[in-house]
């Protein structure tokens, strides 16, 4: 009897103790006149510094509190944030020596921007940010950082960046959706760019100020009274809640408990179409291109010259595969029309090329191409074998592995299955595999499938961020990038003409750049190193009362949070 009493007493004490443990610090209570909104996202941002992790969630909250020198609007136009104007050759901000291959860019900054503690944002902060990034021990890495020789201060609001190359990506190098300027007087240089505390407790110079962060649960932002654009922002409080399950997020939107869902899935956009309280903002342009990577080297190897792929190294086979994929059915049935066909890397501004015709879906032509290439089904099992093909031994069976990654979700797996079905009809047998992203894209030393060349065909999505495709093209298509763990030229495609064109786009002449890019498109179309299929539409669902939302692929939906209003 006595013992049981003691046990129950212990339980009661335990219960009380744990409920106190779970108690969170008190938050300021909301008044009714306050204009507050709730954004729902599936996981916690790791910090406010997307350079370190690039999860998208870090960029989302970063855009609420921090400013870069410049940013990109949904149409692909670069606009100044901390900069007074965008430096160009025309306005004298950029001085380039095309012969020597060097240039210097002089940025003039706004003089009316302050940190939330009242101190001005100056060139010292920019130089501090640059030096923190390039610190070899505690620093980070941003695109084109190796092209910078030095950053010189001219006066408190003017500085010059000296480049050892012509680098067209300079426009958003210290801006865009990733890079912001950090406060020199607030961040601890000893902790370093990659791990400093100010990345989790940021000092704001943007429209909002972080007031509370309960890890894994929610973040609260309040209006920055010091924000430089007068009368903005018009929202008083922004709460970012972490809601991992997407059907719960959908229900919260419908119930009016949430105002904005970031990166809404196609299924959810479709389901929310007729909800009276919810609207979906679609990005005017898409970024992510669903594509098939061909391994031009034999599975398990990375040298297409020494060990060419027995099936895929023949261009006609790659063309046949393209003709046998029904892109329209995929975009309609699985992506519910929230996707557009794409067949070249250059499909969005500022570099759109119209010199490539959209490929036709034509299974009969595909079968004819395979016959011509020497792949025929003579034993009647529905799968072709090599009978006179140039790339494999006589009798080699046309069977390959076709891999995709799990995190994308059901649509991609259905797409994978439909493609396999289509190719099966023309006699190419595909065995389907689904793996985790970290296994697909891991370093070759970690057993990464792509880097170690351990695949035949893969399907997944990528596309360049921002307005400069140069780095992206270099890392996916150049000969330099065929080396495992150096680039992502996973098919190990190598083409001298392409490499030469790539060398020529490092210029500031926009007309030359566009012309070269379109020439590249032709080379790629002729050789089909990979197969571009379609782009998924970027959309963000929001409540009708929240106005001013404009989805964009050039940034996160919070890019214009200062302009949002509440109806």
């Amino acid at each position, binding site marked *: 009897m006595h013992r049981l009493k003691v046990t129950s007493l212990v*339980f009661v004490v*335990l219960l009380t103790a*744990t*409920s106190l*443990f779970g*108690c969170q610090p*008190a*938050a300021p*209570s*909301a008044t009714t006149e306050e204009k507050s909104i709730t954004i729902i996202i599936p996981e*916690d941002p*790791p910090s406010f510094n997307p350079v370190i*992790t*690039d*999860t*998208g969630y870090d960029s989302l909250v970063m855009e609420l509190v921090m400013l870069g020198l410049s940013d990109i609007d949904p149409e692909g136009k670069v606009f100044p944030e901390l900069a007074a104007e965008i430096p160009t050759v025309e306005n004298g901000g950029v001085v380039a020596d095309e012969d020597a291959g060097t240039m210097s860019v002089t940025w003039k900054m706004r003089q009316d921007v302050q940190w939330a503690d009242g101190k001005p944002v100056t060139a010292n902060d920019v130089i501090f940010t640059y030096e923190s990034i390039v610190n*070899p*021990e505690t620093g*980070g*890495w941003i695109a084109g*950082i*190796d092209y910078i020789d030095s950053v010189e201060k001219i006066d408190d609001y003017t500085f010059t960046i000296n480049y050892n190359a012509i680098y067209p990506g300079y426009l958003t190098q210290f801006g865009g959706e990733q890079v912001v300027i950090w406060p020199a007087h607030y961040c601890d240089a000893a902790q370093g760019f*990659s*791990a400093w505390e100010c*990345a*989790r407790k940021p000092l704001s110079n943007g429209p909002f100020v972080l007031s509370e962060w309960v*890890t*894994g*649960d*929610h973040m609260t932002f309040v209006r920055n009274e010091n924000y430089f654009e007068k009368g903005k922002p018009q929202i008083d*409080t922004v*709460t970012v*809640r*972490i*809601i*991992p*399950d997407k*059907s*719960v997020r959908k*229900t*919260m939107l*419908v*119930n009016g*408990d949430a105002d904005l869902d970031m990166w809404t899935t196609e299924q959810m956009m479709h389901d929310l179409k007729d909800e009276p309280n919810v609207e979906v903002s679609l990005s005017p342009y898409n970024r992510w291109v669903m594509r098939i990577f061909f391994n031009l080297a034999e599975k398990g190897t990375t040298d297409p010259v020494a060990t060419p792929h027995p099936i895929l190294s023949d261009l006609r086979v790659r063309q046949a595969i393209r003709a046998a994929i029904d892109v329209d059915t995929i975009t309609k049935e699985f992506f519910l029309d929230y996707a557009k066909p794409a067949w070249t890397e250059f499909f969005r501004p500022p570099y759109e090329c119209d010199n490539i015709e959209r490929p036709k879906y034509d299974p009969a032509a595909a079968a004819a191409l395979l016959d011509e290439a020497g792949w025929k089904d003579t034993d009647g099992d529905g799968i072709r074998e090599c009978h006179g093909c140039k790339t494999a031994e006589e009798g080699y069976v046309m069977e390959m592995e076709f891999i995709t990654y799990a*995190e994308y979700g059901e649509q991609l797996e259905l797409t994978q299955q439909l493609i396999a079905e289509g190719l099966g009809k023309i006699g190419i047998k595909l065995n389907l595999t689904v793996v*985790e*992203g*970290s*296994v697909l*894209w*891991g370093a070759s*030393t*970690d*057993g*990464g499938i792509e880097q170690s060349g351990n695949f035949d065909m893969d399907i997944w*999505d*990528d596309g360049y*961020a921002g307005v400069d495709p140069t780095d992206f093209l270099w890392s996916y298509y150049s000969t330099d990038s065929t080396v495992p*763990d150096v680039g*992502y030229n996973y098919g190990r495609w190598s083409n001298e003409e392409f490499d030469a064109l790539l060398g020529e786009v490092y210029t500031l002449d926009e007309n030359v750049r566009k012309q070269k890019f379109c020439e590249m498109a032709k080379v790629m179309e002729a050789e089909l190193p990979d197969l571009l299929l379609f782009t998924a539409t970027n959309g963000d669902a929001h409540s009708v009362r929240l106005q001013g939302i404009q989805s964009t692929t050039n940034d996160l939906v919070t890019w214009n949070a200062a302009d949002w209003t509440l109806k």
Partner: protein
Amino acid sequence: MATYIARRLLQTVGLLFILSVLLFALVNLAPGGPLAGQGQSRHIDPAKIELLKRQFGLDKPLPMQYLIWLVGNDWMKVDKDGDGTLDSYGTRLGILRGDFGFSFRSRQPVLTEIGDRLPNTIYLTTVTLLVAALIAIPIGIISAIRQYSTFDITVTTFSFAGQAIPEFWLGLIMILIFYAWLKNPFTGEPLLPAGGMTSVGSAGFDLGDRIVHLILPVATGALGWVAWYSRFLRSSMLEVVHQDYIRTARAKGLNNWKVLYKHALRNALIPLITLLALDLPYIFGGAIFVEFLFAWPGMGRLYYQAALNRDYPILMAVLIIGAGFIILSNLLADIVYAWLDPRIRLE
């Protein structure tokens, strides 16, 4: 007893050491790695990979990485800036001195990350287990003493269902019913919140608000436990009531209640309490599905995310602390059993 406990604790240390080697190897050798692109990027630039390898300590051979994880690197010079020369002493202390490293994802100390999540998980799981036990015990008793009654048959049916229904399905249905469909008749608001631990923006500690937020996750999490514990107690109770000493107690004229409570239940509870002790690691590990569905910021979600991102330091810390919990719970179960049942001797 004291020697026994001391010996078992000593064994625990050895066991944990062997486990740590195995886990470290498994976690690191599993395909995929922390240097794969994630989220917005499908890849990381080679220059950044070099930097990250250095910052994460992945540039060293695996046995060396294990050694540093265990005992730190403040006793050896390391190449911090990647210029090929060993320039200064490291800063890691190793887990033996309480340094579990930092998360690859958030760059926060692992213990900070766990410290943020653990109280939330303990809070939810303790309540869940308590509620489960409080419901399961009376059900188990009544089922046993009214064997094959309508109550027993109904409860048996529901127990099978309770164990068979997957948590993620049940949770979604709960949210659909109590959040999406049913409204509070006075305010017009949803009857129960869809998730979270408290209402965002609520000031201070509000018991009512906390209870409201607990109902759905606890109900979802407890159902399986209720089914499991009540079945267990039922069979344990049935075994006891057919013992000779129960018949003796009845024969000497004790009233039925006293027989059941004082003689039968107290003996039938012994195995259940052992079972509860064995289930204690759940309090540390949390329930991934419940945390995921009800947006509960706990250990389960932390672990799941770390597994997806190959956040080795977090994974290792959760696994090794979890392993310690399991070993200690087993020890605790043995001790409690001996304490409750004087016939058991631990040697």
